[in-house]
């Protein structure tokens, strides 16, 4: 009997509790005719009974899931002879690992001490008993709490308010999970970054102009010190994102204006979905499109003008990335332009404004906050985009303003630093977290700036 089986039984009990609670609500009210005397609709009484049936039992279940392993392991270790007790931290860790492997039935690496074997058996036995105990406690708790509510069902019981409060608690819980996850990710990146900054100073990282992340295996090795200046990497990110936005913002905005103001409904009906398909193309497809089609094209085209274009260029990656983010700009802009009330257009036309005057002077300003929002979303996509740049922009960290040369970006470097076997105490690996933190701060800063701009220049209509 596995633990999840208890959950199924619990679900069955809950639906039973729902029906019983509802039936009791009817009966205390005196049948269907008397249900008007109930404080809440009968379903709420059933719901309350069901919720009380499930929640306490679930709490017990969660508690068991969280703590059973450590409790059982502790108990099993207690049975070991004294010689195996007070070991050093490393050795007892090893012991616990062996124990776990034995319990799970994995083949252990070294010869097994029969004492340990005994402890593992002990563990398994206790777990079996514990699980049965869990089932008994859970189900009796469910029955007990459900009948506790069931007995107390009266017409004046405020079942709806109780249920709504519980639902509200559930909503708060969900949003808390999202917030806590965010905080957790930020903190973990932050702590790893701090470990990195214990090796390399913050100023070297932020203002260093050379990016060559390598550490010596031995102290006497040649080129033993790597350089971790983030400027070239960051500059590459900004250049490629800049090129992408230069492509995407005008094209996206213009197509949004065409679709929402000029296109007939038939054109709109098929053009808009097709544009949105662009957003559905996997980035890796864009990536090889950039590397195999666009980059050679630019290289050959540049060659005709006597330009020296490297086969992996920022321009190729930026152009393709720009195409990729067009739908973000166009789709969101289209929506906000459509949301501008017809009264604004009428007012403008009524003054003798032409269509283009109306669009540039009235509609775009009114839609500006939404348009900026779309551009911002596109910018974050561009900054965070990895696949296209990995394939088309190259890995060499050139600090250059020439878009025809190969550059690298923050995301690409994070990928290359963490791919393969790495030791997690060397700056070479830890710098990935510092880069991640930097990227996070940059996008956060962009968001704040954009919010400020929108708030300052927004033109609100009712």
């Amino acid at each position, binding site marked *: 009997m596995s633990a999840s089986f208890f959950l199924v039984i619990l679900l069955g009990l809950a639906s039973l509790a729902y029906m019983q609670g509802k039936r009791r609500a009817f009966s205390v009210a005196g049948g269907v005719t008397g249900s008007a005397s109930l404080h809440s609709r009968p379903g709420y009484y059933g719901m309350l009974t069901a919720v009380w049936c499930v929640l306490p039992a679930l709490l017990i279940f969660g508690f068991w899931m969280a703590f059973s392993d450590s409790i059982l392991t502790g108990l099993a270790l207690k049975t070991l002879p004294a010689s195996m007790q007070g070991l050093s931290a490393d050795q007892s860790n090893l012991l616990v690992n062996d124990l776990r492997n034995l319990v799970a039935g994995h083949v252990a690496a070294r010869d097994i001490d029969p004492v340990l074997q005994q402890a593992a058996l002990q563990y398994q036995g206790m777990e079996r008993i514990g699980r049965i105990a869990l089932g008994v406690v859970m189900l009796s708790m469910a029955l007990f709490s459900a009948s506790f509510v069931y007995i107390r069902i009266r017409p004046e019981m405020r079942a709806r308010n109780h249920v709504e409060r519980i639902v509200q608690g559930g909503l708060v819980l969900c949003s808390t999970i999202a917030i806590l996850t965010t905080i957790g990710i930020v903190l973990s990146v932050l702590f790893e970054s701090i470990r990195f900054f214990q090796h390399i100073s913050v100023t070297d990282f932020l203002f260093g102009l050379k990016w060559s992340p390598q550490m010596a295996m031995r102290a006497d090795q040649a080129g033993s010190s790597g350089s971790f200046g983030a400027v070239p990497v960051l500059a590459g990110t900004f250049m490629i994102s800049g090129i992408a936005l230069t492509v995407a913002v005008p094209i996206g905005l213009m197509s949004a204006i065409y679709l929402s103001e000029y296109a*007939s409904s038939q054109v709109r009906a098929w053009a808009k979905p097709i544009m949105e398909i662009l957003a559905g193309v996997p980035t890796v497809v864009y990536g090889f499109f950039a590397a195999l089609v666009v980059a050679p094209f630019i290289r050959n085209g540049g060659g005709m003008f006597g330009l020296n274009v490297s086969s992996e260029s920022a321009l190729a990656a930026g152009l393709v990335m720009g195409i990729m983010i067009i739908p973000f700009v166009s789709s969101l802009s289209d929506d906000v332009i*459509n949301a501008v009330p017809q009264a604004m257009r009428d*007012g403008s036309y*009524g*003054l*003798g404004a032409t269509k283009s005057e109306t669009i540039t002077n009235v509609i775009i*300003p009114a839609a500006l906050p939404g348009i900026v929002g779309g551009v911002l979303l596109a910018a974050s996509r561009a900054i965070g985009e990895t696949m296209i740049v990995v394939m088309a922009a190259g890995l060499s960290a050139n600090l250059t303003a020439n878009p025809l040369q190969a550059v690298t970006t923050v995301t690409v470097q994070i990928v290359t630093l963490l791919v393969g076997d790495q030791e997690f105490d060397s700056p070479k690996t830890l710098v990935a977290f510092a880069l991640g933190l930097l990227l996070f701060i940059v996008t956060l800063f962009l968001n704040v700036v954009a919010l400020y701009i929108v708030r300052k220049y927004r033109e609100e*209509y009712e």
Partner: protein
Amino acid sequence: MESMSATLDIGDVSFLGANSMAQEKIVLTDEKVGRENRTTVGNQFIDDARMTCRDVNVYYGDNHAIHDVSIDVGRNEVLAMIGPSGCGKSTFLRCLNRMNDTVDSCRVSGDILLDELNIYDKSVDVVPLRAQVGMVFQKPNPFPKSIYDNVAYGPKIHGLASSRAELDAVVESSLKKAGLWEEVSDRLDQPGTGLSGGQQQRLCIARAIAVRPEVILMDEPCSALDPIATATVENLIAELQEQYTIVIVTHNMQQAARVSQRTAYFHLGDLIEVGSTDRVFTNPRHKLTEDYITGRFG
């Protein structure tokens, strides 16, 4: 644009499918009852008219919204158009500066002349026409810009001011004519949407005046305003009349009686009666007009 117009509320004729269907049915049943007693009575024609409308028919798709309306609008007069909801008065008003062009399914036949010019002639450009025939809408719709920019918008796009000082002067005089200058002169840079409903409507009137129109069309300009703001706008109409020709659609018969010299009564797409306001309200000649102004329906 299509999706806009589909949800557009054209004054009285709410053009969402269900309503227009319902309206169409009414028109059909009425036609069975007989159209002969719907010919216009009263004095619809006048000498030296500013706008001349002859046999105007308006169709929304298959829905025949306006039937053979012929009427003159005099110089410096206020013509009030009254009638029950869905009678076509707003639709007709919107024909006078071709605002109906923005509704795709709308078709207009007949002649509408501004002075000697047929405004539905192919050679006529709607842009200067709408500058000549301005419009104030039912719901105040200031642009989401500052008060100054709201008024300056029209003059800017029509090139009516060559310098900032001239523009300032146009804005000031328009706001003064609209009776709003005293209230907003110290906060011209504040958003127009932050004003109260009555102030917003006067701002929209100032905005219309600023392009120096000859005719101002008002589509129930006070329906969203409280009585005090309504009184202000009505006084304003009386003052504006000295310089402009005004056509006003209203649901409020007292308002029509207060502000207008001539009144036209519309019923289900027909122009039933036209006459001097005093005469129409005291001595209506048509049974339908009498029923409406005595409150038997409406």
